[in-house]
């Protein structure tokens, strides 16, 4: 039997309460989606969802997902706690669906109800259920699937560690790498948020390169990014704005390619490892 539980804010032991049972809250089939292992710089396709594999082994996995769930173990939610729900969790046949509850999820408006007589209904004590859950745990595959990491980070505390953004110091030390020359007063404080994310990834990728490979990468970037001025003697790229930095970072991630037919130079703004 499917049932729905709610996590109550600022309450522990127990923090989860049973809301209702015998009703399927979310219609969700994981097979309808193509799953991509989470990576902060991946742009999801329309039918795509991120997944986190081996989820129960992760530190941010909720304790109650690690054991067999028994609905009788959850107390019934006291009516006065409805305003303090932080998320809903629907335990269903093959999936455990989560929906974050924010103040905007509560309906606080008057509703016009048509029928024999038209009446105004006050919508107190109502929580809006989204057509699509924010996160879904599939026990049979031990994966968590979701669309937006930011939304679920309040449900799974610590999961936002996956969303790396370089700190000011890291950006600073990256921009001081010998192959970068800053110009036009561009510095670490002017690096945009998306670029900080890319810097965090690029630091890792760059650290994994040997000396010869680094030179190859420099030549590769120079070949594709004619808009970034490159000093071949000193092997330095001159970076004067966010856009140039973005292309340099894409280059380090080897996002440029040439089509087989037509020799068109292209940039892949989202990548996925095959095989």
């Amino acid at each position, binding site marked *: 039997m499917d049932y729905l539980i709610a996590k109550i804010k600022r309450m522990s032991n127990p923090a989860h309460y049973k809301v*209702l049972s015998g009703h399927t809250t979310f219609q969700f089939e994981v097979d309808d989606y193509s799953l991509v292992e989470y990576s902060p710089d991946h742009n999801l396709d329309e039918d795509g969802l991120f997944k986190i594999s081996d989820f129960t082994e992760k530190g941010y996995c909720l304790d109650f997902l690690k054991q067999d769930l028994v609905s009788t*173990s959850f107390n019934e939610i006291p009516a006065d706690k409805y305003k303090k729900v932080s998320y809903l969790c629907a335990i269903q046949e093959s999936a455990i669906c989560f929906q974050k509850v924010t103040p905007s999820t509560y309906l606080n408006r008057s509703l016009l109800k048509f029928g024999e007589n038209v009446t105004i209904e006050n919508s107190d004590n109502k929580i809006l259920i989204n057509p699509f859950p924010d996160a879904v745990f599939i026990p049979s595959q031990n994966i968590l699937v979701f669309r937006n990491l930011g939304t679920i980070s309040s449900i799974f505390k610590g999961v936002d560690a996956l969303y790396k953004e370089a700190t000011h110091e890291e950006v600073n030390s990256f921009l001081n790498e010998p192959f970068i020359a800053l110009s036009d007063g561009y510095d670490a404080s002017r690096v945009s948020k998306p670029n900080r994310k890319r810097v965090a990834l690029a630091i890792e990728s760059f650290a994994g390169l040997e000396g010869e490979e680094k030179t190859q990468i420099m030549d590769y970037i120079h070949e594709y990014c004619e808009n970034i001025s490159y000093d071949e003697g000193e092997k330095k790229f001159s970076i004067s704005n966010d856009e140039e930095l973005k292309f340099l970072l894409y280059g380090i991630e080897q996002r440029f390619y040439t089509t087989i037919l037509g020799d068109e130079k292209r940039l892949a703004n989202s990548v996925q490892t095959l095989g």
Partner: protein
Amino acid sequence: MNLIFRLLLTFNATSLLVIIFLVQKGYALGHFFPILCPYLVDVSNYTSYFVYLLVPVLMTWLSIVMCPKLGKDEFKSGAVVSIEHANNSFLPSYLGYFFVALSIGSPEALFFVYGILFVFTFLSQALYFNPLFLVFRFEFYNIVTSDGASIFLISRNKYKLPKDVVIQTAYRINNYTFIEKV
């Protein structure tokens, strides 16, 4: 809904106190409304006692009928790890009711004692042991679920082993008491 149901169960569980008091004092039906319903005066004591007993029996039946209005839960196979038959555990508390009822002297005392008992039974919520469920062929069980929680189960099935307890729909009377209505 739950509140009404719990009040009903509390009444069923404690009503025996009033009946024993009435029987002990020899109050027949005619004693209550001699002017309004004079024909009741002729009703024999035995018939009166039987009528008294009928009230909680009907109320218990009503509470069983009302069960499906409660929250539902499921016991999957493997959800229960230990089971203990608990039909007899209500006896000490019921003997308590008997002695209290027998020693009450006046209707005022009954009113007061019953009031206190009702409130405590209602609030404790654990003591819904109602021997009248036995009349309706229900059995009482203490079960422990796979995650260690202890639950009181009322069911018509004669469970013997934990693995026998597989229930599609059990109704939740409160967080520690469930009833299976077959």
